[in-house]
């Protein structure tokens, strides 16, 4: 029984890593948003499992927030923005899919090697979740680095935050921060969607930030 409980926690956390990797090879914005919604669903399942395991009812709130905001509200909002801006075009990734996948595998291996070694004495549940969480954070960074589009960068950032929430829930009895960080991720998402995209759209025809890159400020 003990073994099974652990295995389910691992499957859920490992599934989150897989969805993160799936995010890397999406070449359309709409499918990227859908993958992010799936990411949020898996996250909420992982968090809910942890809540049951640790007997920590407040974590159910985190799971609920993840599913309501990250899996429904934000993806719906992003779909609307993408449609309104007319950017269902392909995403141009800076690196080829093969290379990014290789990089992602390297990052997963790195985080496993690092965290399993460092947290050798910690509770096995927390240790392995922490390793998965670090992998998700690093892949989120990779998404942000390889994408040039503002919307996909925001998605990359939100997947990175999902990794942080996984880590926070795995740390047994961690107070406050779960709720606060969820509230903040929502805030961040809203600020990004509301303020930035809106403003950028107002000034430019495309949300592609490479359009902004023309200006470097150093040229005279």
């Amino acid at each position, binding site marked *: 029984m003990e073994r099974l409980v652990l295995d389910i926690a691992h499957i859920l956390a490992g599934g989150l890593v897989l969805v993160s990797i799936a995010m890397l090879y999406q070449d359309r914005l709409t499918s990227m948003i859908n993958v992010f919604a799936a990411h949020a669903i898996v996250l909420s399942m992982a968090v809910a499992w942890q809540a049951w395991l640790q007997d920590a009812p407040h974590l159910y709130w985190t799971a609920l927030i993840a599913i309501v905001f990250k899996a429904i509200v934000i993806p719906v909002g992003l779909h609307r923005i993408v449609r309104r801006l007319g950017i269902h075009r392909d995403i141009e990734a800076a690196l080829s899919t093969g290379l990014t996948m290789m990089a992602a595998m390297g990052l997963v291996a790195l985080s496993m090697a690092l965290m399993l070694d460092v947290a050798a004495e910690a509770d096995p549940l927390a240790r392995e979740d922490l390793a998965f969480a670090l992998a998700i954070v690093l892949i989120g960074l990779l998404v942000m680095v390889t994408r040039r589009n503002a919307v996909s960068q925001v998605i990359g950032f939100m997947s990175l935050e999902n990794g942080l929430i996984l880590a926070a829930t795995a740390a047994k009895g961690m107070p406050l*921060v779960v709720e606060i960080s969820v509230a903040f991720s929502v805030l961040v998402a809203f*600020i990004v969607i509301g303020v930035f995209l809106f403003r950028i759209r107002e*000034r430019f025809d495309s949300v592609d930030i490479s359009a902004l890159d023309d200006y470097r400020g150093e*040229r005279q």
Partner: protein
Amino acid sequence: MTGFDPVVIVLIAPAFSALLLALLPGYVLTSRLNVLASLVSLVAAFSLFGVERPAPGPYLIVDDLNIVFIALNCFVGFTTSVFSASYIAHELETGKLTPAYLRFYHGMYQAMMFGMNLAFVSNNIGLMWVAVELATLSTVVMVGLYRTHEALEAAWKYFILGSVGIALALFGTILVYMAAQPVIGEGIEAMTWTNLVARADAFDPALLNVAFVFLMLGYGTKVGLAPLHAWLPDAHAEGPTPISAVLSGLLLNVALFAVLRFKMMMAVNTEAIPPGPLMVTLGLVSLIFAAFMLYRRGDIKRLFAYSSIEHMGIIVFAFGMGGPLANFAGLLHMTMHSLTKSAIFFAVGHIAQIKGTQKIADLRGLTESHPALGWALVAGVAAIAGLPPFGVFMSEFLVVTSTFARAPLIAVPLAFGLLIAFGALFLRLTGVAFGKPVGPMGVSHASYAPLYAHLALVLMAGIWLPPPLVTWFQNVAALLG
């Protein structure tokens, strides 16, 4: 707690006025209220020195270290609000901003002050993280306030890099909790900073090491350390000038404060890697990198933004060296840098309003056309470059001599970086300050008082430091270990 509690006022005044200012119409009224709210925070901050301190709770703490930061924060926050009140009207006249944006601007200004003060008084590493994030988000929207191409790119870059930094810092915070939890137990107690410092010797050193690397990279991004500094020059150059002044003078200090808190915790655990060498390396890299970058700047606000990276490098270097003398020098340098750099940005704000440009090539002969402003800029640059008799000279001198005494080999690149930066600043200054005046010759309507007040303080600190201040800094330096 009964009666007068300055800690609460330092937090409530900006939080309440942030809401109020966002709702009130009329920029004249809101800019005055902004000054008033900043004054209230300032008075409360200084009264912290006098009143009896409450015992550290699970969320808030007042100790010798953070009082210095809060007082400096509220002081520069107040003078900048005075500058901003007289400066911002001009932006309205030139049509760069609309009244609705100004309302938003003032609300955000106080929200930022609230975030920074909360970060200083928090005794909880989770709360501190939230506060730093709040301060960052409110400055992001202010950097993008002008909504030009450049401002949006700057704000976007700042937002993305700042968020990544803050995310890494959160991961580090979680790891610290993981290290503390077996020793202190579950719950809020294991995130309280006073408990962490008291028990850190029993924490798992391997976890602490990884945690510190994440915290250093995360908060280091916000300090503007090279190679994580890419957001800083853009954010300084494209936002409104009062925001450049608070970014350089205050927000960088907030992140530095977080690094110092964790450094103190690391130092307790003797088995963990000492935090010093990492900080010394990052500090030196930032100093030398920024010193070289100073040479080819075409934009005057970018020039001084790189100078901020350079000085944050020096400060992190000094705290990384540790020991009573280097810590004292680091604290003094931080104070002097905040005062001087915000003074320089006030001067640059006046100049940009008169000339209508920030391009160094279009700024000439200011001492001739506008003596009051030109000479103030000369004084400011002389101060920041580390010339006597200004306070920055004294703190840089202390950093260099204490390093020579302990590790002469490290002192060589330090002195080299300082000299390179010195040369670059004066190369740029001669053109701007002297030579034949060009461009519009109007007058600036913004108030000169904050500029002169800051320069006077920096000059005074260079000549005579009040003994109570010296004792206070010595105490804090000993505390920092």
